[in-house]
């Protein structure tokens, strides 16, 4: 049984997604402990330029074909299956993302390889691979000993640091035997829909004031806006708030929204569903306020308070404003 690790690289609009680096970093670590190699698959069209960013891997399976320009599961799946056939890795790492979710089940069922989703931790214990996955909205973790056979594992973005995966040297290319014609794609890309133009790019704001369902209604948004103004920050929100229409889509933080890493993330009335945590857990300083002491947000927060956000917001705004006036007058 080969001990190689294969990472499926994801890219969007010409750049590699952070998840790719996260997986590469972890992949390197595991490959070392298993005494195997780290390979990465890069599928797309005119993506050769990204190869040099994959230096942490031993080999890159580059497949550059026009059919792969935009992601469509049939073509990608066919290529990936061919790569699996060729490499026979011990472990295949994918992101639990819009793309990973499609490939995971398709390949697992077709090729009869076991798979895991929602992985947040991976380690090698005496040659055995152990994955920890989060389920039930992040309230329960499951530890699974991976079988001694090729296994697909989809990892929750943000679970591993990306720095270990960012090595800028050019790795070796590996040729994969592919048919001249890929199977006809039954899903075809028509066009990309851009989000409506937003006022602010929350991924660039150093201070974010996040609101969740605890804000209760649109009227209370002003409390968050006032605090954001006092801190020179920006208001963002979890999905339920966006769904209500209280803030535009561009302010959504989470799996389907933006991933943010501000210096300060204040979470008011956010319970901390995994989808949201994924988008903000790498913030430098997280302070969470929620009336539920068991809210999952407290597991990623650095500081927490079990209080009513609506009560705390105006008081905090006042404190900050007073401090500012004190400073100004001194």
């Amino acid at each position, binding site marked *: 049984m080969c001990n190689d690790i294969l990472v499926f690289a994801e890219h*969007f609009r010409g750049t590699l997604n952070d998840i790719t680096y996260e997986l590469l970093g972890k992949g390197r670590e595991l490959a070392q402990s298993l005494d195997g190699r780290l390979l990465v698959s890069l599928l797309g069209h005119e993506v050769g330029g990204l190869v040099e960013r994959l230096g942490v891997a031993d080999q890159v399976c580059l497949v550059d074909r026009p059919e792969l320009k*935009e992601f469509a599961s049939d073509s990608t799946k066919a290529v990936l299956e061919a790569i699996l056939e060729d490499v026979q890795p011990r472990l295949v790492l994918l992101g639990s993302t*819009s793309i990973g*979710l*499609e*490939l995971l*089940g*398709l390949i*697992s*069922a*077709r090729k009869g390889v*076991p*798979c*895991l*989703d*929602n992985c947040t931790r991976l380690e090698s214990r005496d040659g055995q691979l152990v994955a920890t*996955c989060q*389920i*039930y*909205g*992040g*309230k*329960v*973790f*499951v*530890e*699974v*000993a*991976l079988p001694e056979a090729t296994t697909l594992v989809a990892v929750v973005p943000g679970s591993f640091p990306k720095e270990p995966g960012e090595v800028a040297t050019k790795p070796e290319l590996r040729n994969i035997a592919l048919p001249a014609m890929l199977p006809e794609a*039954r*899903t*075809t*890309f*028509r*066009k990309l829909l*851009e*989000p*409506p133009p937003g006022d602010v790019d929350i991924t660039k704001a150093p*201070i974010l004031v996040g609101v969740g369902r605890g804000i209760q209604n649109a009227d209370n948004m002003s409390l968050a806006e006032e605090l954001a103004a006092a801190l020179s920050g920006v208001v963002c929100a979890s999905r339920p708030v966006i769904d209500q229409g209280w803030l535009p*889509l561009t302010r959504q933080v989470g799996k*389907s*929204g933006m*991933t943010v890493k501000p210096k*300060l993330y204040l979470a008011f009335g956010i319970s901390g569903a995994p989808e949201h945590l994924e988008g903000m857990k790498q913030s430098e*300083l997280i302070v*969470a*306020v929620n009336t539920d002491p068991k809210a999952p947000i*407290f*597991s990623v927060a*650095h*500081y*927490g*308070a079990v*209080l*009513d956000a609506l009560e705390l917001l105006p008081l*905090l705004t006042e*404190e*900050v404003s007073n*401090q*500012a006036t004190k400073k100004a007058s001194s």
Partner: protein
Amino acid sequence: MNIAVLAKQVPDLVEGLEIDPNGKALDVNYLRYILSESDDHALEQALLLKEKVGGRVEVFALNQGEARESLVTAIAKGADRAVLVDAGLDSPLNNHAAAQIFAGLLGGGLFDLILTGVRAIDDLDGSLGGLVAGSLDLPYAALIRKAEADGDGKTVIVQKEYPGGYAAELDVRLPAVLGIQAAEQPPRYVPISRLRQVMKTATVEEVSVVPPSQQPLDVTRLFKPEEGAGAVMISGDAQEAARQIMSLLSERRLLR
């Protein structure tokens, strides 16, 4: 258009979860089940498609938790047929087995579309939609928030969500499987009076299948994260907390 909806029961998080003393499963005491939220959206999307282009909506569920009630509700919402599948499956965290069962029931081109929620809170071994599509060798698109039938009835045009608010518009050739993230409108409300009426008149078909031979995952343990682990909790009332947070921010030079 003939649409099949796969509906799954998942633990209701409102009741709180406890781990069984053996550490490998949930404590079934006080455990209540509820229809997976995105499956509810899948049903809604199916009904919307039926309303627009006609056809049938059939709902399938494994006999777990409150599956029967969910199926009756589906009929009250407008589904044409509801099937309760009894497979004697004890391990809930096993979408592979469920996928094989459904693949067996839905194969043979009976359905143009198979809709199911893109993920459920108990998806450990991948989500159902992809596994079913893989078993039946059907095209699969995940994280769908909109689906329209094309005029000729041979394709659906869908919107697939990407992070950052982006979405891709795709053509999907039928028959296909879609993993629904959200229906185009929130799941419809069924007044209790109608539900009770339907409960008296509706029939839920029951099908027994032989459980597939499984290669279950080697689950070594289940555990709950330490509560508030990592977070330093600020005590005191709101005024006190505001002051403490303020000094924290000041200390970290986060204030202007």
